[in-house]
């Protein structure tokens, strides 16, 4: 078929070093048209040498400046580097302003750098898959290093960064509430924690606090890598060498190609586990939606599935008359039910039966008729018997903004 043949031709040219072809290929792979699945497999087969570094940080954390400094150092070393910059999309229009690349100033012009921007398009699972495909393309085409950079606001970004070999979380100095939130969400995944604007005195303090938190949380003393905390100042050009050394040390200890190992099926021969391991984004969505379809309360309250994945679920509900309390506001029980539905779906996504044994919710803003609420569940911790989940309930507002409505945490007991 003509279209398929042309994507093959593009792939061949891209592998031979044609940058224009690579740019086109990335689009066609992202769009997922005819022939792209084959190309993705082709690229994946040739991938495995690149070192993938994931970098995330909230807006204003100084992440982009740091990426620029890393780029500068690696380019000076003669490395070829690809950068995948991911920006959130407007939940209303689906459009996005992709602004990360411009912060890479002069380095963006270097011939050994290739920068590609993606918008999140509001689809967690799809974006992970698209990023994975793009990383494989860059890897196959010979880029030695791939930086995946996201604006970290929570679970969607951590999912993306999770496919990296080395994960860096950038946080701004400061001991306020926003920093507490960062700690809660991202300490789980950081291999290296960089406190930016290291020239400010507050940075050293923040770094010390972070180290303390890491010590308390140390999960596995036997692990080959203990997360490191550094203060970095791109402005004063200090701490960059230490960051580079830490990155190299992590690569030495843990190797590259982690994303390929992570997506391999579990050692169990269980057919269900194999089936789950072979699911793609749409498959996961269908699976989670299937669970919800059997749920009487979801049907009764009009709760629909937006997305789902292993240990993740996003559900939505539009507040109608049946959800209201006697004061005319949304009934707390309805919000609880929404969050709890996400909780149940996420905790049961892996297969084994998970039953809720404790849950707690806070209500933060008034919710009214007509509001659409989205509940997103992520897995905070899971062992064989116990799982802990965090669910954020939000109300999308205008472009790129969401109001936090409720915070829910829940614990399940898992039947072996």
């Amino acid at each position, binding site marked *: 078929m*003509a*279209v398929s*043949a*042309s*994507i093959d*031709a*593009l792939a061949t040219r891209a592998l031979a070093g044609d*940058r*224009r072809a690579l*740019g*086109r290929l*990335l*689009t066609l*792979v*992202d*769009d*997922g*048209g*005819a022939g*792209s*699945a084959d190309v*993705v497999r082709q690229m994946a087969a040739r991938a495995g040498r690149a070192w993938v570094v994931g970098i995330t940080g909230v807006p204003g954390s100084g992440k982009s400046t740091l990426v620029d400094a890393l780029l500068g150092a690696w380019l000076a070393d003669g490395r070829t580097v690809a950068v995948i910059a991911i920006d959130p999309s*407007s939940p*209303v*229009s*689906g*459009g*996005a*302003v*992709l*602004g990360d*690349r*411009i912060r890479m100033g002069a380095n*963006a*012009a270097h011939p050994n750098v*290739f*920068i*590609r*921007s993606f*918008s999140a*398009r509001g*689809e967690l*699972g*799809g*974006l992970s*898959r*698209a990023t994975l*495909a793009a990383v494989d393309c860059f890897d196959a085409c010979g880029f030695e290093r791939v930086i995946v950079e996201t604006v970290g606001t929570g679970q969607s970004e951590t999912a993306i960064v999770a496919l990296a070999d080395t994960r860096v979380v950038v946080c701004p100095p400061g001991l306020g509430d926003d920093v507490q939130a960062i700690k809660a969400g991202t300490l789980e995944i950081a291999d290296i924690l960089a406190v930016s604007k290291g020239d400010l005195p507050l940075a050293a303090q923040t770094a010390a606090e972070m180290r303390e938190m890491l010590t308390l949380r140390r999960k596995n003393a036997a692990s080959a890598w203990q997360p490191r905390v550094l203060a970095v100042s791109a402005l004063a050009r200090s701490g960059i060498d230490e960051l580079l050394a830490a990155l190299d040390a992590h690569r030495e200890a843990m190797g590259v190609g982690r994303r390929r190992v992570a997506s391999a099926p579990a050692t169990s021969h269980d057919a269900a586990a194999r089936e789950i391991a072979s699911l*793609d*984004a*749409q*498959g996961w969505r269908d699976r989670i939606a299937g669970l919800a379809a059997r749920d009487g309360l979801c049907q009764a309250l009009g709760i629909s599935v937006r997305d789902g994945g292993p240990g993740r679920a996003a559900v939505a509900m539009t507040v109608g008359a049946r959800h209201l309390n006697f004061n005319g506001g949304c009934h707390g029980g309805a919000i609880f039910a929404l969050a709890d539905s996400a909780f149940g779906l996420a905790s049961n996504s892996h297969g084994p039966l998970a039953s809720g044994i404790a849950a707690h919710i806070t209500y933060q803003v008034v919710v009214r008729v007509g509001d659409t609420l989205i509940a997103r569940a992520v897995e905070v911790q899971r062992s064989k018997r116990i799982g802990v989940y965090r669910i954020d309930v939000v109300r999308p507002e205008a*472009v790129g903004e969401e109001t936090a409505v409720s915070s829910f945490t829940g614990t399940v007991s898992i039947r072996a």
Partner: protein
Amino acid sequence: MNENEAPSPQPSPAGGRGSDFRPRVLVTKIGLDGHDRGSRIVAAACRDAGMEVIYTPPWQSIPAVVKLTMEEDVDVVGISSLATDHLIVPKLMTALREAGLGNVRVVVGGIVPDNEEKLLIEAGVREVFHPGSTMDDITTRIRDYARESRRAAADAEVKT
């Protein structure tokens, strides 16, 4: 396939994200001027119209624009020009063609004297938007040009 539609990708087992047509638009300024009130408004309007916008600060060099267009697979390049920076747009057109990006549509917005608008069109600029153009007009046209650009790219690829 309808003549006027860009080829719409089939949902694939790879779970591609391409079910919506999202034009990729570059909004930038080349040359010496820095006034960007208009270009920021256009960028926001394109985003609100569902497009993916790559926005750069002013003073981009032509080679930087070409590299960006290639890496980001931009469909439409929008040049904002207040003073006289449009005078080097023909150079940009040449540079894009030489880099194999002849399918990319280029539009110019801002203050362009009428006698110079002709020069731009002759050099291959798709349209010049003057002050008084509405955001709806601009985003609608850009969407049309993005379709043209994708079709042209696909045609060129089938031939090779």
